[in-house]
């Protein structure tokens, strides 16, 4: 038995998963602090959570520098279970931002809605750690467990308002459909395991490339890949696996909606990308063709459905489906511009979407029944700063230059054009023109309708303001001077 312990210890490399370790530790510390705090007092817990995220960010940056100093692209840990590379670290930053912005906007919101519960923040930290494992995992098992940590946290968070029927419903729907999709995901993994005899992504890639004829054309391989993809496409919210998204996004607490549409989506994309690149690089023709169709469907259907919505949260849910479609375009392109474009896009989307949600969190009354177009009538005049901020986020979602949304879309579509998917790019641009119909309605409501409300309930708590300002800076920085971040995204691609 002595040997086993030694062998096990040899594989341990906490440095490779440092950011997530920090988050897990902080998550547990938050639970403990929660025990000793007065019920209903959660502000300090939120800020300690922020400190945890800052530490994780510092660990990520230092890991990045470490890689740069040692001049290596990738570093493995835990017997090749995880990799620490630019790709994982860039996504870590996206997850940290989305978690931090979510926590910042939540504190006041939770009190307003009557659920000041400290476990909320722990769950967000755990979900973020799960995302990080997904992005850095190089083994199907680790990916699966990361995915489950993330999903289970999100099931709870979506149903977090236990007295609110809508929140219950959102949580339950997400849970049932998520578990269902997990079934397909696992079946795919089992088939791949059967074909290759391993669960390690690189080894799968190796076997699938060394035995071209025998393995690549094998229906089991293809079915395995497709079923596996299904699971990830579900999480990303790609048509026709998107149907849970609007309902869940609408019913979940607003900060969680914001969180779900940015961080976890990016995590699923990250894991999906790594699987496609590590394991199925040889089958690129197959999955590009599939994703081409799905990207077009996702962009178009998401857009069309968004047009007739009246609830802004739900509209943003469809818009987030559409944005997932744009991100897929980069995956279809399958060149390094497309891939680094996805990284860049997800970061930009995190800022603009979370920023928009942060404003909506403040604009909502208790129960949030006023988050419709009519409910925002005249908001821009009553609350000038929030109005301008929301306008900038909406313009960015629309893809107006010089905001982050424009540069991100430009990047993605440039990748598609480079890969000669000119029609895909055209459809994408056409879709972003259609998206105007519904984004514009927010601006019209805010600036061209007479105020029906006095918006007296709109306060400006510190946390939410910080999150709005961070998002604004992010959106404008990525729009005006994207060069440095694009460079990082480029380095991050293997």
């Amino acid at each position: 038995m002595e040997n086993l312990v030694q062998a096990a210890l040899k594989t341990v490399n906490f440095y490779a998963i440092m950011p997530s370790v920090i988050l897990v530790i902080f998550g547990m510390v938050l639970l403990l602090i929660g025990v000793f705090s007065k019920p209903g007092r959660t502000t300090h817990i939120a800020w300690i959570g922020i400190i945890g995220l800052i530490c994780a960010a510092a660990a990520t940056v230092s890991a990045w520098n470490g890689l740069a100093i040692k001049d290596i692209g990738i570093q493995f840990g835990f017997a090749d279970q995880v990799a620490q590379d630019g790709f994982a670290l860039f996504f870590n930053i996206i997850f940290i931002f989305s978690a931090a912005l979510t926590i910042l906007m939540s504190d006041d919101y939770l009190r307003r809605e009557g659920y000041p519960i400290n476990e909320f923040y722990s769950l967000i930290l755990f979900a973020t750690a799960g995302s990080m494992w997904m992005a850095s995992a190089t083994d199907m098992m680790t990916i699966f467990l990361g995915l489950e940590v993330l999903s289970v946290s999100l099931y709870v968070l979506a149903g977090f308002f236990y007295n609110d029927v809508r929140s219950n419903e959102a949580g339950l729907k997400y849970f049932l459909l998520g578990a269902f999709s997990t079934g397909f995901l696992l079946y795919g993994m089992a088939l791949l395991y059967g074909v290759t005899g391993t669960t390690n992504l690189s080894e799968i890639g190796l076997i699938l490339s060394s035995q071209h004829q025998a393995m690549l054309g094998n229906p089991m391989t293809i079915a395995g890949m497709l079923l596996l993809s299904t699971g990830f496409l579900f999480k990303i919210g790609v048509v026709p696996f998107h149907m849970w998204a609007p309902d869940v996004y609408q019913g979940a607490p607003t900060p969680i909606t914001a969180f779900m549409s940015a961080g976890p989506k990016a995590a699923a994309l990250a894991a999906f990308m790594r699987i496609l690149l590590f394991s199925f690089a040889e089958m690129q023709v197959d999955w590009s063709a599939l994703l081409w169709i799905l990207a077009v469907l996702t962009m178009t259907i998401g857009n069309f459905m968004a047009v007739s919505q009246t609830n802004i949260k739900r509209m943003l849910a469809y818009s987030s489906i559409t944005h997932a479609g744009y991100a897929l375009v980069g995956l279809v392109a399958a060149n390094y511009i497309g891939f680094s474009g996805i990284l860049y896009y997800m970061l930009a989307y995190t800022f603009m979407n979370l920023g928009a949600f942060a404003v909506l969190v403040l604009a909502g009354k208790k129960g949030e029944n006023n988050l419709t177009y009519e409910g925002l009538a005249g908001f821009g005049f009553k609350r000038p700063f929030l109005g301008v901020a929301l306008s900038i986020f909406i313009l960015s979602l629309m893809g107006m230059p010089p905001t982050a949304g424009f540069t991100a879309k430009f990047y993605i579509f440039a990748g598609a054009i480079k890969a000669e998917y000119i029609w895909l790019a055209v459809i994408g641009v056409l879709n972003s023109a259609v998206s105007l119909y519904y984004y514009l309605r927010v601006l019209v409501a805010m600036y061209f309708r007479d105020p029906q409300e006095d918006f007296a309930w709109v306060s400006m708590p510190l946390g939410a303001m910080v999150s709005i300002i961070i998002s604004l800076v992010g959106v404008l920085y990525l729009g005006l001077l994207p060069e440095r971040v694009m460079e990082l995204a480029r380095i991050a691609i293997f």
Partner: protein
Amino acid sequence: MEQIYFFIIAIVAVVSAVLVVSCKSPINNAVALMMTFVCLANFYVMLHAPFMAAVQIMVYAGAILMLIVFVIMLLNLNTVLIQKTSHSVVGAITLAGLVFFQLYYMLGHSSTTSIKGDISNELVMEVGHTQLLAKSLFVEFLLPFEIASILLLVAVIGAVVLSKRNAAAQE
């Protein structure tokens, strides 16, 4: 002999699986599901994985299913919820049939890898299944194992949070 045993157990498993989806009462569903679990445990033994069989019984039949049964009892669903028949049974049968047909076709036209590992049935007999499994689990898959612990922690927190009752109202 083994073939015959396999078929018998397989038929029981399939029949109980059908009962899981067709019985009207949730309790009966649960019992049928238990039956399926036990059949699967049988297969695990046949596949030289006795430890998995034990875990199957303990975790699935013992823990998960008990939890489900408790909830059914707690909500008193046997009487509360009358099963409505679904209007899309035909569609569902078609879809499930298609799923099966595709899987079947796929299995029939493909082969698993020819690269074989070094864990033969004889080795399992000799060293013991549990030890081999532990070696794999704690050396190669230590990280997923750690993550699993976090997962369980998350599940506990989740269950605690969700079963709070009107905490907000009391404040």
